[in-house]
């Protein structure tokens, strides 16, 4: 039971109250925290880095060389190219791309419904191909082009153009109810339209068969994809 403060404070106060226990965080946590506070992402969801520049986050206490097999358990610093921007982050071997996107970079548009590779809700594109980020090792994503559901306004990117067409179609055709699975659905749909701009119903089902929707909104999803495909075909491209 916390001691009652005599001054009236809003429970939502921004006051921080670190205790010795909380400040006793381990080194890895500190590294991760420093990655965030160095301004890669504002946690309100606004990207602070722009263009294709690399945001280099220096660890003030030590540099961890990514040499192979010297300390197999060591974290390594990797560069991730996400939605056209570069991020350097420190990752443990066991860090999945999903943990890094969400917990370290604040890119929470990529969801984590099952964290077991069983629902597709965490789907991202890596070099245009759909993967479940919860079972994709983060270190392996280094140097590859990653697109998340936040990547809808990347200049001169076909992926981005398809992605946003889908997102707009999702509004028109009511593609989601609770919408928890929908970022993953839309990333799978983006991969589908990238390789097949005008899919048949059967091809849509095949392409979307790795994404569960607990609301059962599959008819809305199908209609949304069909509308986006139609809009992209008839569009200026």
């Amino acid at each position, binding site marked *: *039971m*916390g*001691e009652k*403060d005599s001054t009236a*404070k*809003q*429970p*939502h106060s*921004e*006051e*921080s*109250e670190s*205790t010795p*226990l*909380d400040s006793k*965080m381990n080194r*890895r*946590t500190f590294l991760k925290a420093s990655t*965030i506070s160095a301004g890669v992402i504002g*946690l*309100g969801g606004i990207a602070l880095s722009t263009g294709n520049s690399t945001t280099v986050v220096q660890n003030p206490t030590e540099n961890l060389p990514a040499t192979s097999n010297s300390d197999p358990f060591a974290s390594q610093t990797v560069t991730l190219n996400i939605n056209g921007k570069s991020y350097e982050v420190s990752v443990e071997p066991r860090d999945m791309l999903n943990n890094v996107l969400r917990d370290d970079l604040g*890119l929470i*548009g*990529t*969801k984590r*419904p*099952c*964290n*077991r590779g*069983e*629902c597709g*809700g965490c789907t991202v594109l890596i070099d245009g191909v759909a993967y479940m980020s919860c079972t994709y090792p983060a270190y392996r994503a280094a140097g590859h082009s990653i697109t998340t*559901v*936040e990547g809808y306004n990347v200049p001169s990117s076909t992926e981005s153009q398809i992605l946003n067409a889908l*997102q707009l179609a999702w*509004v*028109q055709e*009511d*593609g*989601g*109810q*609770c*919408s*928890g699975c*929908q*970022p993953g659905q*839309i990333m799978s749909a983006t991969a589908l339209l990238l390789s097949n701009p005008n899919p048949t119903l059967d091809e*849509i*089902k095949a392409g979307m*068969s790795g994404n*569960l*929707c*607990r*609301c*059962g*909104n*599959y*008819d*809305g999803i*199908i209609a949304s994809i069909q509308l986006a495909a139609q809009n992209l075909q008839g569009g200026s491209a």
Partner: protein
Amino acid sequence: MSSKPQSSGLNNLDPNAKFNLVGNQAVTRRDIYAKVTGQRKYTPDIGPGDIGRSTMWYAGFLVAPHPHARVTSIDVSAAQAAGYVTLVESDLPVGALFGIGARAYPPLVSSEVLYPGQPVAAVAAPTANEVVDALNLIKVEYEQLPYVFDAQEALQASAPQLWPGGNVPGGGVGENGAVTSGTLTLNLGDVDTALANADVVYEDTFGTSIQQHFEIFPRGAVAYWSGGQLTVNASTQFAWAVQQQLAAYFAIPATDVRVSTSLGGYEDGGALGNGLGNKSTGEEYVLAAVLAQKIGAPVKFVHTRLTHARTTTNRWPLSATFRLGAMNDGTLVAIDGIYTANVGGRGGAQGADAVGDFYNAYNCPNMRFYSIPVTTDAYSNGAAMRSVGEEQGHFLMESAIDELAHKLNMDPVQFRLKNMRQAPNPVEPFANLPYTTIAQPQALQEAMQAFGWSNLWKGWGVPSSVNGTKRVGVGMCIQNASKGSPFPPSTSQVQVDPDGTVTVYIGLTDHGAGGNTTFPLIASEALGLTSMANVKLIQSDTMYTTNASVTAGSQSTHNSHSLLYAVEDLKNQWFPIVASKLNANANNLAFGNDTIYDTTNPSNSISFNDAAALLTSSIKGFGVWQIPFNVAYRSTGARFAQVEVDTETAVVHVISHTFALGLGRTIFYKGAIHQMMGGSVMGIGSAFFEELLNDPSQNVTVTPGFPSSGSWLNPNFHDYQIPTIYENPDSANVIPVENIDPTGPFGATGIGENCIIAADISFINALSNALGGYRFHKTPIRIEDVVEAIQWMNSNPNGASSTSSSTTS
């Protein structure tokens, strides 16, 4: 300032009324773009920056992999030595219990484990990864105890007694298995005499299985303290209940506890990622707060798939033995039903709703029901899952009714038309309450026509078509379910700013049902607006909104009726100001088409925004609405389905279905249509896939540190199967029937639960028709059950009567 008008003149109940937004097919879901671009934060998405902090800890449960065991030791020292924070029962206040009455339990147990997956410890670590490290450092030893999964076995005197006083919550079982208390007994007419005089008596037993919500996002919370004040951002359908629970637990005033759905408190804030009845209160909301207090940092406590499936709530298995009596002309003369609910290790008394559905759905002079809840080790806690037992109850009821029609060799539609409760003047028979509205027989007739039943139905056990190994059958059912019970008053507010901005404050949330659109839509329509562009929504946050009851029970639309009263109150403050501007009588003013106008001279009007500009400061209207107690709220509808089965592979596919449901009035059109379709898809899961399983092996020697016989098998999305896009029906025809309910806003009623209720049995009755009339006796019907049906059909080419008994007197 607050007012409570007795009636709202704003509630337009004209069935032919023209609206701007109500029922408008062009209205899109307000929060969907934010959600599909990754901008909307659900509870699991909340990071430290969202709550003004720089760090956040992560928490998880250690659960027992045994069905029934005594905890002999818990050693958390290694985890603590590694810098992690642990909780066991002794760290928690004595007497701080969860659950219902005699089945209340502590959120972590150090004594007796009653089901596989019961939490024995909780940990917190500075990163999500390290939660697993901390859990792996805790050593728990157990002594195995005899366990029982089956409800009938648990009623035997020799069964392990799981709670003091026996395995019937609140009661016991006397001689010959007669339940002495803790049961529900309803008796109308003279069932025994009616059965003795019936032309046909049909007796059979049906049952369902343990199911789980498997919400796309698991339940969870982010908790943090500022001095003595606690904030919990929770994925909850009922922020006020969580607030009360936390205040009681920490013995602090409720005003020192803020609970919000997701981040809450800002426009369209609430986002749950499904609720389905599983997200009202929960242990982790409290434990996150305890850990946050101990650590001095925010703690995020989100269930994993395993702990979500096994330690939160479940849809309880319900079985029923029926004796139904009918005359040769198809008149239903007697219903005798004994329901047994397996409520799990810590569920309370359940079963009344399923019974209520039967006596509401059918008009029968002689009815008698018993309902027995039984505690077992099978799972955690039998509770609501998109209805409170009614989904199960409809399977039981509509299996038996269908088979009775089969015994009578009567068209199943004709049997329902003859016996179901319908207009005019429907009355709930036991408490003698008049219905507020009923959609029957309109729903059944419209659905039958749209489906083309008369062309597709070829008779009992005769499929509509056979093409090689593919057989197609058709089936139908009706539904009559509760749509919410009289909860305490629901409250809300509507504010208008001088710049014309409208803000709707309502303590309901949106777990996928579309409330984030429905609530502002109702207020906007009442305000005469043609667009919601300048309407904001603040919802489900105990700091900014007031209690509007739980977002559950298909009653949120009903409960948002308070918005009409809030607009009424707003009008009373605003119209006198506008009246002087228009030189009109305030009593003659009305909202309409983005204006306020004089009803005696409609050309004398002022635009909504200009009228707002007359205000010197914002004004807020307060609405209170109490659902009347002396009437019956029922949701009624009918379903028809066409199902294909391949007799070589036993794979079943729903080709099409038609679903007509009374919803009073369509408010948010796209949302209503998609809920009706989506709930039916969830019903495909219930019919053919979903069952939470325990290991049936017996008496394998226990290996310490590993799961034992009787532990879980499929607590994940791969093995607890829900429908994929391939299981989606090829076509779905959903028909909203607008049976105006005078107690609902604009005559509307809620539909959430009713979108899944009876879906499974409509598909199952169609499958039965495809397979020679084979009667399935349980859900889910897994592929092995379909194989059995095919083999039965192959050896009974004439579709002889199934295993169930039937006597003709």
